[in-house]
Structure formats: C-alpha cells, structure tokens
C-alpha cells in the first residue's frame, strides 16, 4: 500500500469513517497491547484534543450550558466538523455558527449570543496591532472637510447585535452566578475591542451609536454617518452633527480610531 493510501485510511479511521476498522490490519501488536488498543490511543486523543480547543475558547459558554450540556455540544460539533485549520482557535470559532444551524442549540438565542460574544473577544485578543490616533488630530480638520472625512479603526473593533441582557448574562456565567434571563425578543448592541494592546473589553451601545459605528467601520464618511443618524432620529442637522461628534469623541477616547482619512489633504 502506498504511503498516501495508508494515510487516507488512518485518517478515515480517526474521523470515525472506517466502521470496519480496516486500519487495524496494518497495525502490529506490541508485546503488551493489541492493535485496537494501540490505534485507540490516537482515536481518543483526537477527540480529546478538539474538545480541549473548544473548552479553552468557550469557558463562559461551558458555564452557561453546564458540563454535560457543553460536552454534548462539543461531541456533536466534532462529529460534524473535522478541523481544516492549523490554529486551534480557527477551529473553535465555528462553534456559534454550528449552534445557529443545528437543533437543539438553534432554539436558544441567548446561548448562541453568549458564544458569539465569547468568540468576538477571542478574535479581538490577537487582532492586528495599531496605535490609537490622538483626538487632537481632529483639530487639524478644516470645517468644510468634515463631511468627507473617514476613519480607520483598530482591527479588533466589532459591533455585535445580541439579545437584550447578554452582557450581564455573560458576566454572570463567567463568574458562575445567577442572573435574569436575557430578553430574546429585544436587541442589545455591544462593542468589543482590545484596549491599549493588552485587554479585551466591551461596552454597550445605544442603537443609534451602534448604527453610526457600524457605518464608520464599513468606511462611510462623516457626512454619510450624519445622514443615517438623521434618518434614524429625525432631529435637526445641528443636533445630529453634535451627536455624531460626541460618538466620535468617545471612539477616540476608547482608542478605537487609528487614522483620520481626509480626502482633501490626501496626496
């Protein structure tokens, strides 16, 4: 048998696709151990290792589901999803989408959203580095340039739309304390980012700020963001510009903005 054929056979057996255990014919016994037990060392290590990756990245979800519930989810995910990634975290990050797509986990928006928040925090952890832009840089903008200005954000910044009360539920599950059930019929908006290159944090956004920030993250300019806010709130232009300005000030204070892009001064 070629090396390629042997590897394909060995892999199929590890993935549970070799019901007849054909691979055992290729394995010799040792003085103390039969082929099935010898191969079994690899088979059990495979599942344990993947389960370990998931447990590492979803500690809060594990608490929220309880050990038995989490174990059932993990086993189902491993059966459905061989890893195609070298990085353990890339494998684990498919778990919220699997929950969303698979019964019975798709019945609980709250649990899926806890998993999504946990994944976002893991993603933010090792997103690309960039220094925050000082808010003083805004002073250099001419008033007539403001509408065209765009902002570049730290790569870790993410806006999530989750069930109302996921923040407190997440904290409670992390601390293994009780907490009121999230309201799955209402939304809550959370901004997740890495602060000062060391700590992953999040804060709640109003729906207006969440909309403005999502647009800004998507590369919309300040004028477009104001127009959307106006559509959202129907306030007068000065009120809207002041509100957008206050959001922007907060984004700078959070260290989210890494660059101001003024097309009128670009070369």
């Amino acid at each position: 048998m070629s090396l390629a054929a042997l590897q394909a056979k060995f892999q199929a057996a590890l993935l549970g696709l070799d019901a007849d255990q054909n691979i055992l014919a290729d394995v010799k016994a040792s003085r103390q151990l039969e082929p099935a037990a010898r191969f079994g060392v690899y088979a059990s290590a495979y599942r344990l290792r993947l389960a370990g990756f998931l447990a590492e990245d979803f500690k809060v979800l594990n608490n929220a589901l309880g050990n038995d519930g989490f174990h059932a989810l993990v086993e189902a995910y491993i059966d459905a999803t061989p890893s195609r990634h070298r990085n353990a975290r890339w494998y684990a990050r498919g778990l919220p989408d699997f929950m969303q797509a698979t019964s019975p986990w798709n019945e609980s928006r709250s649990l899926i959203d806890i998993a999504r928040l946990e994944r976002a925090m893991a993603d933010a952890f090792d997103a690309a580095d960039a220094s925050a832009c000082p808010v003083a840089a805004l002073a250099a903008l001419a008033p007539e340039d403001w509408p065209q200005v765009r902002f570049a954000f730290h790569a870790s910044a993410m806006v999530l739309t989750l069930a109302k009360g996921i923040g407190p539920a997440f904290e409670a599950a992390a601390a293994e304390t009780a907490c009121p059930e999230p309201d799955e019929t209402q939304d809550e908006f959370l901004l997740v980012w890495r602060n000062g290159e060391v700590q992953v944090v999040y804060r709640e956004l109003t729906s207006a700020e969440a909309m403005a920030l999502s647009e800004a993250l998507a590369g919309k300019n300040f004028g477009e963001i104001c127009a959307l806010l106006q559509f959202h709130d129907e306030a007068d232009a000065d009120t809207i510009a002041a509100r957008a300005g206050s959001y922007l000030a907060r984004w700078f204070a959070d260290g989210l903005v890494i660059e101001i892009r003024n097309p009128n001064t670009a070369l």
Partner: protein
Amino acid sequence: MQKPSPLGFGLGLRPVYYREIFESKPPVDWFEVISENYMVKGGPPLAALERIRADYPIVMHGVSMSIASTAPLDEDYLAALKDLADRFQPEYISDHLCWTGVHGVNLHDLLPIPYTQEALDHVVGRIAQVQDFLGRRIAIENVSSYVTFAESEMDEWTFVRELARRADCWLLLDVNNVFVSGYNHDFDPHEFLRSIDVDRVVQFHLAGHEDRGTHKIDTHDEPVSEEVWALFAEAWRRFGPVSTMIERDDKFPPFAELLAELQRAREIAATVSKIGAAA
C-alpha cells in the same frame, strides 16, 4: 557541516509563565517557542515574544509542517513561518517527523509513519523543499508513537539516521520520545541513541510521560522520569554538549520547579562531561 553552537539549558516558553519571566528574568539560557502560537496578527502573544526575545535567544518549534504527509506542503504555513523567523531571528527552526492530516484536514496530532523506503524518499524530498524555501537547515524531531505499522521495512533509528544524512538536516532528539517509543515498540532506547550520527544532533528535548502499564503516553504533564534522566546522561555522553530543554504542556507547576528540573539537567551534563574529560 558546522552545527549551531550549543545554547545551554532552556525551557519551552508557555503563556502561563510570561509574567514570571518578565518579572524575575530567570536563569534560563534560551527558550523554545511554539511557532504557531505567534502566527497571529497582533496582541499580547506577539508583544510577549518581543519582550522575551530582547533578553533570550530562541528557537522556533512547530507542530504543523506535516513533513511526512502526502498532502502538498502548506505554502501559506511556510510563508508565515518564514515571516516569523525574519522577525524574531531564531537560532534555528524545528518540527516533527510526522504527518498531521491529508485532504485538507488537520488532525492536530503528530501522527506516525511506516518506516519504508517510500516514506524515506518522500520525507527527504519534502525536507529539501522546506529547506530551500526557508533558506536554512531545519531540525527534525523524533516523535513518540503508539502503533507499529506492518509495512515498516526498517527500524525507526535507521529511518531517522538515513533521513538526516540524505536530507542534510539537523536532528532534534527527544530523549523522552525515544524512551516512550522504545517501551511501546519493544526496542532498546540505547540502540536508538547509538545509531544516530553525532554530528546531526543539535538539540535534546526532555519531558514527562504517563505510564499506562501496557504502554506509555507522551503527555508533557509530569516531571521528567528517572529512566529518562538516565537516558539523557547516556545521550549527553554520546552527543553532548547539545542545547537541552524541558517541555511542559500541562499541569503547570510553579516556575521554580521547572528551574529545579533544568538545574538537574545541568548537573547531569556537567558530571558526564567531567567523566568524559577524565577518561
């Protein structure tokens, strides 16, 4: 063929110990880092490695090269490895004599190969490709294994020796893996050591394993066993001085315990060297 100079006595760099390393600047001669842990865009892992690298030499040790796989080499992985090496300037780069998957699947394990002429030719060719791409010799580590393939045509040590000669690569000799595999495959670990060329071995790994009675498992979650210390003395006698380090990947003890284990490695090496010099 000039081996890289011995780095002394090192430890595997693990995130649980970052803080202690930053604060106490422990007397460790060098650190071995898991390459994949730093193949990220930014954040604390890379910042930590920058700090460590400012104070210590490092070697980069990978688990994803899959050098013995029949799947094509992962060019993205090799490019990421090269970028990381350009940034952190390791003394050298190592990975394992194993495969990790085929058909796009990663089984996240160091899987065994049959010791056949076909496998030898295949791996020799792959190492040449990798060494060309990286522009440097790599070190290949012997793994712990749990199955013996009926197809094998030669001993593991013959395979490893021939591999190093033909591929012109270095060897990272994992003393614990020699011991564990010897137990699992009923061979004499001393015979393994005696068969490997002295001028190929640039590094030793020491680690703990779990004894299941009928077999032993390479867990890296216990102190180095007495039998492995004895085998290390034997290895040092034959190959030393060689860069030596302890791998610990689970049930992490206080850092001081690892330093004490490392001190024992130093003392064994010093004793063996003294006897060698006197003889």
